[in-house]
């Protein structure tokens, strides 16, 4: 069996195993698994409203996944997607609230501001890594907390008067679309999905087709050989982090300009940035893989809300299933071994 086929089968097996073990847990704890999965499915695709919500949920997940995947493909581990997302969210809302611009342009400026903010936030770990060889994982983790508390402070003192949220962004800056909402029975589906899909294309094109992408991948694989070949290793490390951060910032714009329309003080992380790690992992760090993985996670998350209502199964169970899927992807060595055994037997 070729490696390519294996790379596709492994995540699929992981999903199946995750659901399987989830089912066992339900049976053991005395819940009706069939009813639970029916409710899950109905909650995600049963009505056009739910489907709209799934796509809305998928939008930031795609961008967060791209962020992690892009960094990973260029040899970096960006754990700071969450922080970059929060910063991007705030920047988008800030532009949306404080500026007066014509429609479309206002939205674009706000979206770009989010990308820029995420990029700047990611520039810090990139710069520290390039200049002082400080490991990006440590810096990005710490910057997540910094982002959370700094944005909370700005919302409280600059963007509002001691309130726990900003005002709504101006109509001209919104990503919301009455057309898309009408299409999906008034879900919160917004134009962000288009931006996410453009992001997917950009990531693929940049990495696989451009001269810069060649350099980024080369530096990611082997800094010494890249230096020897005349590439500027430090520039590429910083650039890789900055581009990754821009994707994360865009994910924040999806929430700020699309789903919510404001930024509020957060007691904790949104989780979308961390889900991005799982999405990238499950999607094999490839553009199409990220879309599919985001779709799965989005459907699970939205569908889960329906489970307690329709089947009486607590929606935390979906968190367990997601955790199991991530576990099985991480333990993919096990699955590969299993596939090897089976395909060997098949030959004989």
């Amino acid at each position, binding site marked *: 069996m*070729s490696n390519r086929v294996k790379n596709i089968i492994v995540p699929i097996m992981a999903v199946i195993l995750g659901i399987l073990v989830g089912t066992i847990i339900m049976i053991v704890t005395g819940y009706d698994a069939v009813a639970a999965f029916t409710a899950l499915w109905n909650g995600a695709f049963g009505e056009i409203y739910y489907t709209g919500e799934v796509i809305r949920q998928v939008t930031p997940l795609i961008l967060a996944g791209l962020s992690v995947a892009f960094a990973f493909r260029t040899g970096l581990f960006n754990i700071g997607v969450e922080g970059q997302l929060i910063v991007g969210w705030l920047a988008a809302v800030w532009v949306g609230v404080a500026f007066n611009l014509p429609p479309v342009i206002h939205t674009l400026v706000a979206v770009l501001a989010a990308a820029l903010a995420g990029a700047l936030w990611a520039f810090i770990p990139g710069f520290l890594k390039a200049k002082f060889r400080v490991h990006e994982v440590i810096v990005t983790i710490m910057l997540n907390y910094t982002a959370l508390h700094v944005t909370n402070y700005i919302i409280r003192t600059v963007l509002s008067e001691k309130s726990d949220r900003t005002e709504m962004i101006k109509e001209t800056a919104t990503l919301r679309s009455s057309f898309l909402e009408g299409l999906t029975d008034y879900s919160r589906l917004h134009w962000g999905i288009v931006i996410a899909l453009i992001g997917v294309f950009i990531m693929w094109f940049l990495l696989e*087709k*451009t*001269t*810069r*992408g*060649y*350099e980024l*991948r*080369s530096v990611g*694989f*082997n800094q*010494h*050989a*890249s*230096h*020897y*070949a*005349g*590439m*500027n290793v430090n520039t590429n490390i910083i650039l890789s982090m900055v581009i990754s951060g821009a994707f994360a910032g865009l994910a924040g714009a999806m929430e700020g300009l699309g789903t919510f329309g404001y930024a509020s003080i957060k007691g904790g992380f949104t989780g979308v940035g961390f889900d991005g790690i799982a999405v990238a992992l499950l999607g094999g760090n490839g553009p199409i893989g990220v879309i599919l993985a985001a779709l799965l996670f989005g459907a699970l998350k939205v569908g889960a809300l329906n489970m307690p209502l329709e089947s009486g199964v607590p929606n935390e169970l979906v968190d367990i299933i997601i955790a199991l899927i991530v576990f099985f992807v991480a333990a993919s060595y096990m699955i590969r071994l299993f596939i090897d055994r089976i395909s060997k037997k098949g030959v004989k």
Partner: protein
Amino acid sequence: MEYVIEMLGIRKEFPGIVANDNITLQLQQGEIHALLGENGAGKSTLMNVLFGLYQPEQGEIRVRGKSVKITNPNIANDLGIGMVHQHFMLVDKFTVTENIILGKETKSGLKIDLKKAEQEVREISERYGLAVDPQAKIADISVGMQQRVEILKTLYRGAEILIFDEPTAVLTPQEIKELIQIMKTLIKEGKSIILITHKLKEIMEVCDRCTVIRKGVGIGTVNVRETNPNELASLMVGREVTFKTEKADAKPAQNVLEINDLVVKDSRGLTAVNNLKLSVKAGEILGIAGVDGNGQTELIESITGLRRSESGSIQLNGKEIRNLSPRKITEAGTGHIPQDRHKHGLVLDFPIGENMVLQTYYKSPFSKAGVLSFKEIYQKAKSLIQEFDVRTPSEYTLARALSGGNQQKAIIGREVDRNPDLLIAAQPTRGLDVGAIEFIHKRLIEQRDNGKAVLLLSFELDEILNVSDRIAVIYEGEIVAIVNPKETTEQELGLLMAGSKQKEVGEQTNV
């Protein structure tokens, strides 16, 4: 004659390649049997079949006359087959004893009985003349000692048949002598040995018989006593091989590289290159001879821009290139075959095709307006692969999957193809077999004959004497002598390299 191991008509296929085809190897009790073949000929595959890592598609393995199926390394172990790997499998932070017993610990209750284990290790090491300190940490002992630990590991597990995978590749000449002694002791104690190698000298010295494979096919087994290095080499490569490189006299012209008063510090901040003066002319090969660690690496790295130098001047065609970026130096007309091909020469996780444009990817026709043309890149790669005889399933194969010799050919193809005025070759034939070495030497001489300057760094005196037109001897960061290879001997070079003849020849260095 009794055979302890017989591999009869072994065939092993991988997708797209037949790695082993109808190979027969019969190991007699108490002999040292060489397995000879070029890089990528299928030696390792065959041994992995014997060790249970691969299953053959055809053929039979017999151990002491009994047909066996070796489906995993544990079975090989139980049959008394032990492997001494080329790349040691040791835990750096463990002691010698801890490494040896790993996976087969002697226990008393729940605790590991280290005392008893140490005693056992000491006994075995004395019996076979393998002097090692059982309590030393792996990180603290020399490479030669580490290899002894690997050998002890197999003996501790009761191996009767030892497979040595290119054991001398990492050893110093002194350590090689000791290893040969150890192998002879092992034979005396009743063990049998398969020695995987492509070094003909060693085969002639220690082996009884030699099985040759070429491009995955078994060529046959010869008695070493009845053969000579030339015959072995032609059996291995499939044609006559010349050891003495044929070349016309050099026609040196103007200086291409001129180095004056160069000072370079090493990674610890100590002066590695000390006021060095050197020039390389168009149309000549200048060889740098020296004992490893006398500033050669730092010299090459500072010429190519990989390391900053403190002071002095490096001129290429009259233009100062000192401390420019590697790209500027490359563009000024240098090519560099680096010492460490895995670290510097290749991006192992890139396809071999993409590695072929590692320095030129940003130029037309490979890149237009920032977008790569993979069609052009792979076309280029294909023609280079053909021209330089790089054996690879395709140009899309990852560089990692190629054998060392083919990786090196790919690098040389890439560097020579840019047609640089100065070609720097640092240990270009390290770890390669005679066929590949011959090929690479020819290419270097070809560059010289085309009027280019070649700077060759090598730790092999044979290579330096064979290929160079002039030899510069480096000692403690200085060029202490420049000699003519036709007028010098290995002995004289050896003395110069050791720094003991510095004064007498110092005056002759003004060339």
